């Protein structure tokens, strides 16, 4: 039941916020704050209660579930469930959601009610995506988070917002449709095989599909997810959307929406199509490394600060693809850590850029420089998150990237070495941020206020989290452990089956050969 409440609170809060606009100009803000806050507290309590429970092996991976019939004729149910992975993602969603409300407090001045309606509905959609275990329902939530985001960018964005909103919508929608086709394909094949037409995740898991068909079906899912992630060459919506979106939009895009892609890979692509995923591994690793290096290169070249940060996301999410397809515990744990830490660190950088934009009305780094003296708090925060971005040990991103690289090294030394070179590239672009904005000669005599209390609370909490993740990551690793282990077990089972298959295949061919002789 709690799962429904998590989503319902956000949706109801969103509607209330919209209505309340006429009561008082600050009412939507407070309502959104309360809704996101309550959700955050609920998830945090769940996490703390289950901290000892989730890593117990032998227990079920799933902590809660609700399952109601929705459209029984078509085998559609309202099926939500939460395991360690979903729990971590829900925690990240509510945490960043709460911060997004706080950072929009003064930035958004027009149509405040409708803004908060969209914000909360995006969060609700994301929460649904992270908990839905009925594929039809999953697709439904996938769309729910898309449409309000389109409005968020298109209405409250910067100069080029309409173009960016269209681009975002078309990329996500087109790839989402491919996923819908794959979901329907899977549904039909499973129905034909067993006579049981259902969208239930667990029923569809073991579907017996020929390798060829499975490859096509997987591609549908894969494209939807790696467009969202994003992987090069499907990343082009990202810099535009991130740059043009209002701060809260960028935080949610980078911190959460990208993570739905990674989550989809972990939850659906690997478990539903283990064999094909295995075959796809070399290509996926190449895609990951391509993203890491190409994203870093583009980040370095940007002069729009927000765009620069946006491209770093492409680079960092490349690590996630590398990890997911390495498919060992180290890399997978690294992927989950990376999803969380990237959400925090990039989110913080976007908030910083947003705050800067609010003060000096430009994002062009050539118009910045020498600002440390005027805004030392912003400088310190910027320095810390630039360090997080380049993977400094002691901060969460290092744990993530190191685990990923150690894990990937066991699968492919070549791609891992190239990915490690990405760390040098990350150093170059991260230091460029600090240098161009805060260090160097003063471009002009800055007369701007430093971070105020509200902003320092946001930044302080993000700093605390990223340092805590860097030094004490174990509680997060424990939470994800059960889910990731079962992912691998499934792989092992499938692999043995696959090997037996190929052995018989080999025997057959050798028999054939003898016959031919």
């Amino acid at each position, binding site marked *: 039941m709690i799962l429904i409440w998590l989503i319902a609170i956000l949706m109801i809060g969103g509607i209330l916020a919209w209505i309340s606009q006429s009561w008082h100009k600050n009412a939507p803000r407070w309502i959104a704050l309360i809704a996101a806050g309550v959700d955050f507290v609920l998830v945090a309590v769940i996490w703390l209660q289950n901290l000892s429970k989730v890593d117990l092996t032998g227990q079920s991976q799933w902590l809660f579930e609700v399952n109601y019939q929705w459209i029984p004729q078509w085998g559609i149910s309202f099926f939500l469930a939460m395991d360690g992975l979903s729990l971590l993602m829900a925690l990240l969603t509510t945490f960043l959601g709460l911060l997004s409300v706080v950072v929009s407090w003064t930035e958004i001045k027009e149509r405040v009610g409708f803004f908060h309606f969209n914000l909360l509905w995006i969060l609700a959609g994301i929460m649904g995506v992270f908990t839905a275990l009925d594929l039809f329902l999953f697709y439904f939530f996938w769309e729910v988070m898309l449409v309000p985001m389109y409005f968020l960018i298109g209405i409250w964005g910067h100069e080029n917002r309409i173009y960016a909103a269209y681009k975002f919508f078309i990329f996500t929608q087109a790839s989402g449709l491919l996923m819908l086709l794959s979901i329907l394909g899977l549904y039909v094949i499973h129905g034909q095989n067993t006579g049981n037409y259902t969208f239930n995740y667990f029923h569809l898991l073991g579907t017996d599909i020929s390798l060829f068909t499975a490859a096509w079906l997987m591609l549908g899912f894969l494209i939807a997810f790696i467009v969202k992630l994003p992987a090069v060459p499907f990343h082009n919506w990202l810099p535009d959307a991130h740059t043009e979106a209002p701060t809260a939009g960028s935080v949610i895009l980078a911190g959460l929406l990208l993570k739905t892609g990674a989550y989809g890979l972990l939850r659906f692509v690997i478990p539903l199509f283990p064999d094909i995923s295995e075959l796809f591994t070399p290509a996926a690793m190449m895609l990951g490394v391509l993203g890491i290096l190409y994203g870093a290169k583009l980040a370095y070249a940007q002069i729009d600060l927000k765009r620069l940060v946006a491209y770093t996301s492409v680079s960092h999410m490349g690590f996630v693809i590398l990890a997911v397809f390495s498919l060992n515990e*180290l890399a997978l744990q690294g992927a989950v850590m990376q999803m969380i830490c990237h959400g925090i660190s990039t989110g913080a950088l976007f908030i910083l850029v947003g705050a800067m934009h609010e003060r000096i009305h430009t994002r062009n780094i050539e118009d910045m420089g020498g600002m440390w003296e005027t805004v030392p708090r912003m400088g310190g925060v910027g320095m810390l998150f630039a360090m997080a971005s380049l993977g400094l040990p002691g901060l969460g991103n290092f744990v993530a990237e190191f685990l990923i690289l150690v894990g990937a090294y066991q699968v492919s030394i070549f791609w891992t070495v190239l990915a490690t070179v990405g760390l040098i590239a990350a150093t170059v672009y991260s230091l460029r941020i600090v240098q161009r904005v805060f260090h*160097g000669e003063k471009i002009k005599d800055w007369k701007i206020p430093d971070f105020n209390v509200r902003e320092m609370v946001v930044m302080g909490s993000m700093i605390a989290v990223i340092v805590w993740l860097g030094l004490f*990551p174990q509680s997060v690793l424990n939470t994800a452990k059960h889910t990731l282990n079962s992912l691998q077990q499934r792989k092992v089972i499938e692999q043995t089956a696959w090997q037996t298959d190929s052995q018989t295949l080999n025997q057959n061919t050798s028999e054939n050969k003898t016959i031919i002789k």
Partner: protein
Amino acid sequence: MLELLWLIPALPFAGFLILALFGSRLSRQSAAVIGVGSVGLSAILTLGIAIRFISSPPADHAFSQMLWQWISVDAFQPAITLYLDALSLVFIFVITFVGFFIHLYSSLFMYEEEGYSRFFAYMNLFVGSMLTLVLGNNLLLLYLGWEGVGLCSYLLIGFWYKDSENGYAARKAFVVTRVGDTAMAIGLFLLFTSFGTLDIQKLLQQAPQEWTINSTQAVLAAALLLGGAVGKSAQLPLQTWLPDAMAGPTPVSALIHAATMVTAGVYLIARTHVLFTLAPAVQTAVAVVGALTLLMAGFTALTQRDIKRVLAYSTISQIGYMFLGLGVGAWSAAVFHFMTHAFFKALLFLGAGVIIFVLHHEHDMFKMGGLRKKLPVTFWTFLIGSASLAALPLITAGFYSKDMILWYTFAGEQGNDWLWAAGLAGAFITSIYTFRMVFVTFYGEAQAEITHKPGMQLKVPLIVLAVFSLIAGFIELPHTLGHLTLFSHFMHSALPPTEVLHESVSLELLLQVIAAIAVLLGIYIAYHIFIRNRSIANNLTASGPGALLHRFWYSGWGFDKVYDTLFVNPLVWFAKINRNDFIDLIYTGIAGTSREFHRQLTRTQTGRLRWYATGIVIGAIITITVVVYL
């Protein structure tokens, strides 16, 4: 007592936290008390622990203290565990003691600067990270300290951030060392994949059992670690960042870029010495890198005008000696030289700092001159430091440590005459450039007026370090001079002794005499050129090949230019050409094409009935044809 080990790194970290969070609200006095005090307390604690450790050594001559489990995933189990043995004890002793005196010195030296508390915050963070580096029991924790000191180095080189040249030097240091760090990180992946652990002691036990000598894995692992070491320790080919790093405040150069951080590579190789023993080829490479670097940097130091750059190149050169020692298996000798070098080089930097301080940021030696009478304490301590750097026989610490390296380079099992000759030539050059610096700075005509006198906080560290630069050598005396082995004996619980091929006192004496002559000759040449007859130097560098060579050496053998041409410029160019991401063209292309189709098809909607009727007829004909004929 040993249980208090964790406090040694924790105190500077605590100092950093306080200064970082409340620094802007603290007065200069309280910032200095916190900054200097935290390191001072660590130093006192280190002393207590050292006494306890030496008087009643723990079992196996090592003590470990687990603080918490850092990461636990599958077999990957790095913990935050501190490990104290003879090797790390020497390092934490040098870090906290030299660190304390440099902090004390900074409390006055930096007093007028903006960002006083920020300075001490960074310095404390540095000391904490450096202590973590040498105390970490596993390579991941070592790596944490390793990157932490790199960060502090970056922050402190760029401390005067308003000058973008300082920012450039800082970024150069960070990026160049990160190239080495990346190699090291790959080495860690390899080691973990091979042994399932990053615990250093376990690695050192397992490696000889599972790897044969010269196996590919061992060679790769050692080579990758060497990559990290040459980056951090500014050895060929990654030495280019250190001279530029002198852009930072002088106490920073003394602490980070002379005494401690740049010797992290020496620590790493000594710490993982078993891996290098398993890869003799790589170990030889360590020696060769050391020998080449010490010569290259020595020649460069001969030509520099900026006093800090002379010292920077001399640091590169002296670390070259340490690498040479490590490369021939003289582990203890290398660590011994690290210790004496920390004393005399910190002393020299602090002395140079005083000069720069009283001459209003003048760095050019040739604009100093005649300071002998005006700054007596600085002069005498600087002279002692220089004598130690030049390895003046018998009385200086530098002599004993350098002699030990040279002896093993010649006589050790892995020794080699050529390497020894390089070391000897280096010693000769060292004495020339060192005394060139002394004579030009302190003798001759005064070129500038002193504006103010150095205070006590500046003098006390100079005197203490000068004393150490003299007496620290007496704990290890060669066969010819009393044969005392306190230091190497102490180190043998952590590092294996060096095998000597020909144990012969007369040979050792002969080598020492040769080295002594080289040093004295060098001093005489410096005296002749820079006190008696300056025109010699001017004539040498005025024209012809002399001028060419001078320019070549002055530029640091053109490495910066080569790297700029080969790597930096092409990469920057590559980044700039495709700023707008050509992949975007594909998508705008698709969008453009659809819009074009849309435009063309729109033109058919003319609103004229006969056009529509014609369309219907043509369509009907085609449909019928298709139906009939197919």
